[in-house]
């Protein structure tokens, strides 16, 4: 079977193609889980513990049950249970209106014994801290590992740096919050419109919960507004919604509000490293001695370290810190953006100590050949030779209030696919073409490339292909995590399109009385090779098919995907030395993704990664209060995310990998190096060495003042 054609042979694939559901999304016609309104719909609301840590003494739902308009009250916690973070769920209500549901939840009387909490990482690590996990300590057993002889390497080093680098907990803050609309069709059949990045994992969660065959559960996600790793499975809110619907005998919608989205459904853990790093006179990184910790609240945390670069010898000790806040979940390249910020910051400081161009040091220690060529190309595009030779000191920095500088960082990721995907391409005898696969489009453009692949095979325009995605009633598709969606889905779609094409060609060839290998599908026509004039429009040719048309089935094929992608980013920033404000002027991002199906949605994903990287670098910080045990900024006012004015010039480049044979997903890698590149650019611009992200105006002013003192 055929592989992907080279870019020059394609007519559709590899060409920038606007996403098919874009107009529906921006005009509001697209139906999200929130927009579904089955007849008799009730609104759900969750009851949550307001305390950082508390034991439930009693729960009285009588007032809520009596309230007119309340359809169901469900309590999932019981007296004696310990609540471990502010926001933990106890149950919920479904009612005729959202206001009634909210009033009813507020009418449930819960009596608590408030227990001591700890919500700051450093405090949680202290021996006298309140115990978050019952009998277990707040810190995990250290994960220690070592290679080579670090002592010898430090002794013979040409330069050694020592420092503590860290980054804050961030929340996913998906614009569409978590939640579902659930409707029981009968006692054993559930339809669930979910905001999820895994319709099949949601289905399987419900099937397990209700001990029903998976086929009895129908999960639908035609469009969704972001998950970033936090939306696999039915979740507490999904199961509660279905239970409320069952109890009330009516469909129920339960979507979280912005506060709930921030406190209870995941976050990206913090990471801190106390590190010593050494290099020899040639710029080889010879030793890394690192102690790491991070918190994922009530769940564990960890980052890969050292990150990316070859290191002669290592001594690593790593722990998770547990505290009374909502648990972490996968967040776009779990652990990698944090690891990149810690590692690339230290590498930058090491290069400066060594008196070496930081890019040269990186290239010297980078094991990836592909990235070496990306470093060269990126440096040329951004004008790396413009950078200030010394931090804060050079022509680019200038002598004024605003200082400019350049920095960089690198990314690695997998992005290959896995088995199981099942796609159908159906050509009907009226010439219509449908592509069907159950996989959801998390927003990256899955729907669009499915149509593009089929259009390419059948010689049609993308607009001629109808897409049917995001439903468990269709063939299996993977969950969108680990950037595996494209690597898992695109091969099955291609194989299904090929099979459908073969069936069509064979029917048409028989009718026209020619051999199948004489038939070509080009530009909406069926053409007989070598016989000029012997051609029929695609639609007309399809009338050769029987009333059932033809269906091509496609399964995953490993040969059409590949694993392992490389990326580098360069940032140019401007530091306002009087206010500490950092403006990202430009980000040059070079990202490899194997064979690139749609360069437009590819660069769109890179832009999105860069934007979230800017958020990590400059703005996002989940703030907890030790006095109250509560999150202080569970909103989009004080939990600051980049807006339109924070956008840089994007130079996002789909980097052509000359050896690529297969497709790779790239949802995750472009978010990895941005924060580090910005940190290093701030240092290059102004001499302000920042050790913690986000780099707020206050921290930048402090670092500038420290720099002035020397």
């Amino acid at each position, binding site marked *: 079977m055929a592989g992907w054609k080279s870019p020059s042979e394609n007519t559709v694939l590899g060409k920038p193609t606007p996403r098919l559901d874009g107009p529906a999304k921006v005009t509001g016609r697209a139906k999200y889980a929130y927009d579904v309104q089955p007849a008799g719909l009730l609104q759900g609301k969750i009851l949550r513990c*307001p305390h950082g840590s508390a034991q439930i003494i009693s729960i009285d739902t009588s007032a809520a049950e009596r309230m007119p308009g309340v359809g169901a009250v469900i309590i999932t916690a019981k007296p004696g249970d310990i609540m471990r973070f*502010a926001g933990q769920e106890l149950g919920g209500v479904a009612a005729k209106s959202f*206001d009634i549901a909210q009033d009813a939840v507020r009418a449930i009387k819960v009596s608590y014994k408030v227990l001591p909490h700890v919500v700051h990482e450093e405090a949680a690590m202290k021996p006298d801290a309140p115990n978050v996990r019952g009998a277990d300590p707040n810190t995990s057993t250290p994960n220690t590992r070592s290679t080579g002889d670090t002592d010898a390497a430090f002794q013979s080093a040409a330069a050694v740096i020592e420092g503590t680098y860290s980054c804050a907990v961030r929340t996913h803050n998906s614009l569409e919050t978590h939640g579902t609309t659930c409707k029981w069709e009968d006692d054993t059949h559930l339809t669930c419109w979910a905001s999820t990045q895994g319709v099949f994992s949601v289905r399987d969660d419900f099937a397990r919960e209700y001990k029903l065959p998976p086929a009895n559960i129908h999960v639908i996600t035609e469009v969704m507004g972001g998950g970033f790793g936090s939306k696999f499975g039915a979740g507490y809110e999904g199961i509660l919604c279905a239970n409320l619907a069952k109890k009330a005998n009516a469909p129920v919608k339960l979507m979280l509000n912005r506060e709930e989205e921030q406190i209870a459904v995941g976050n990206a853990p913090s990471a801190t490293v106390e590190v010593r790093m050494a290099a020899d006179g040639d710029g080889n990184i010879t030793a890394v001695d690192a102690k790491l910790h991070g918190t994922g609240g009530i769940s564990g945390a960890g980052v890969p370290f050292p990150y990316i670069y070859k290191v002669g010898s290592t001594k690593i000790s790593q722990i998770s810190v547990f505290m009374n806040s909502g648990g972490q979940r996968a967040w776009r390249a779990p652990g990698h953006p944090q690891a990149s910020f810690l590692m690339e910051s230290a590498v930058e400081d090491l290069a400066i100590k060594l008196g070496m161009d930081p890019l040269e040091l990186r290239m010297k220690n980078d094991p990836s050949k592909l990235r070496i060529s990306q470093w060269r190309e990126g440096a040329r595009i951004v004008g790396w030779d413009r950078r200030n030779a010394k931090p804060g000191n050079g022509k680019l920095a200038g002598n004024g*209030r605003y200082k400019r500088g350049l920095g960089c960082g690198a990314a690695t990721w997998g992005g290959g696919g896995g088995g199981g995907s099942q796609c159908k391409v159906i050509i009907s005898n009226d010439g219509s073409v449908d592509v069907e696969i159950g996989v959801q489009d998390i927003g990256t453009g899955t729907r669009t490339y499915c149509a593009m692949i089929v259009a390419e095979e059948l010689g049609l325009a993308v607009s001629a292909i109808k897409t049917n995605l995001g439903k468990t009633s269709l063939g299996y598709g993977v969950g969108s995590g680990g950037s595996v969606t494209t690597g898992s889905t695109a091969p099955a779609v291609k194989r299904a399109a090929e099979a459908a094409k073969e069936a069509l060609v064979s029917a048409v060839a028989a009718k026209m009385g020619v051999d199948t290998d004489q038939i070509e599908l080009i530009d909406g026509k069926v053409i007989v090779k070598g016989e000029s004039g012997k051609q029929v429009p695609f639609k007309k040719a399809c009338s050769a098919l029987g009333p059932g048309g033809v269906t091509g089935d496609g399964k995953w094929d490993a040969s059409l995907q590949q694993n392992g992608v490389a990326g580098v980013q360069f940032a140019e920033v401007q530091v306002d030395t*009087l*206010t*500490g*404000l950092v403006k990202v002027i430009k980000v040059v991002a070079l990202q490899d993704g194997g064979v690139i199906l749609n360069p437009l949605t590819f660069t769109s994903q890179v832009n999105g990664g860069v934007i979230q990287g800017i958020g990590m670098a400059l*703005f996002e910080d989940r*703030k907890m*209060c*030790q*006095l*109250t045990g*509560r999150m*202080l*900024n569970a909103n989009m*006012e*004080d939990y*600051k995310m*980049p*807006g*339109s*004015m*924070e956008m840089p010039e994007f130079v996002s480049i789909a980097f052509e990998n000359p050896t690529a044979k297969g497709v790779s997903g790239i949802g995750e890698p472009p978010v990895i190096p941005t924060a580090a590149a910005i940190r290093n650019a701030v240092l290059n611009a102004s001499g302000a060495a920042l050790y913690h992200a986000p780099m*707020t*105006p*206050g*921290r930048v*002013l*402090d670092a500038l*003042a420290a720099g002035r003192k020397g």
Partner: protein
Amino acid sequence: MKAFELVNPTDVSGAVSALTAAGREGKLLAGGIDLLSEMKEYIATPSIVVNLKAVSGLNKIESSAKGLKIGALVTLSDIAKHPTIAAKYTALAEAAESVASPQIRHVGTLGGNLCQRPRCWYYRDEHVICLKKGGSKCYAIEGENEYHAILGGGPSYIVHPSDCAPALMVLGASVDISGPKGNRTVSLDKFFILPTENLYKENVLEVGEIVTHITVPAPAAGTTSHYLKIRHKESMDWALSGAAVALTAKAGKVTSAKVVLSGVAPVPWRSPEAEKALIGKQVTTAIADRAGAAAVAKAKPLGGNAYKVPLTRNVVRLAVLHAAGVKG
């Protein structure tokens, strides 16, 4: 939100009566940007909401040789785009333009901007009963306080959120108030009150009183003004620190100076120290910096907001230079 009765009076006296009758159970609704979010978050739980929107005559900007008379219902976007305000009352136009986002400026009113409640994250959390809500402590003192007051704080350390108030104050504005005891006019300088005076409100309005108009005298010849707002996020954010400055100059020397800070104190914070450093001087970078230093000389930062001291010093310096038309 808690269910409430909506009252729709058509004139000011009707609004005053309704609000007076409602007493502490009543809230006044103008643009609703602040009140509705307070109600949705159960920070405000009125039984009666008096809607001012149907009251006529409160949505006009009147400009004359004597000055401006702005109805309390005039939207911030109408102020920002008014050519006379931009030309002669520059700080006010700049302040209005700096508020939130275009959508909010199209709905938010000047009266609401002056009377909005603090953004303190303890005050805004239903589950925290802080000093301002009848509790016994200001959580900002020992808690997280990076956005809190460095001047005029205690016993509460909120900052006043208004951008327009400092600009109006440097322009010498006053507010017309209607209430159950009749009408009164209060200089904006005397309108806002510190927590030491009253913990539960940020201005002098009594129950039943409504701000109906804001009047601004025409600036003296040779007056220039500027509002500079530093926000962490340029797209839409509150002031970390801001400064409104109005300077009147004669023969190159400052004859009158007004400096009012935002984002740093429980009220829009007039700085006589900064003003004193400017009067009689020709504005230079050194003089502007001296004004900045004077503005923060008495600053008392909490644990997490010390950065506001150098920031505010620089903000005053930059605002003074800009108002004076001097390159920094």
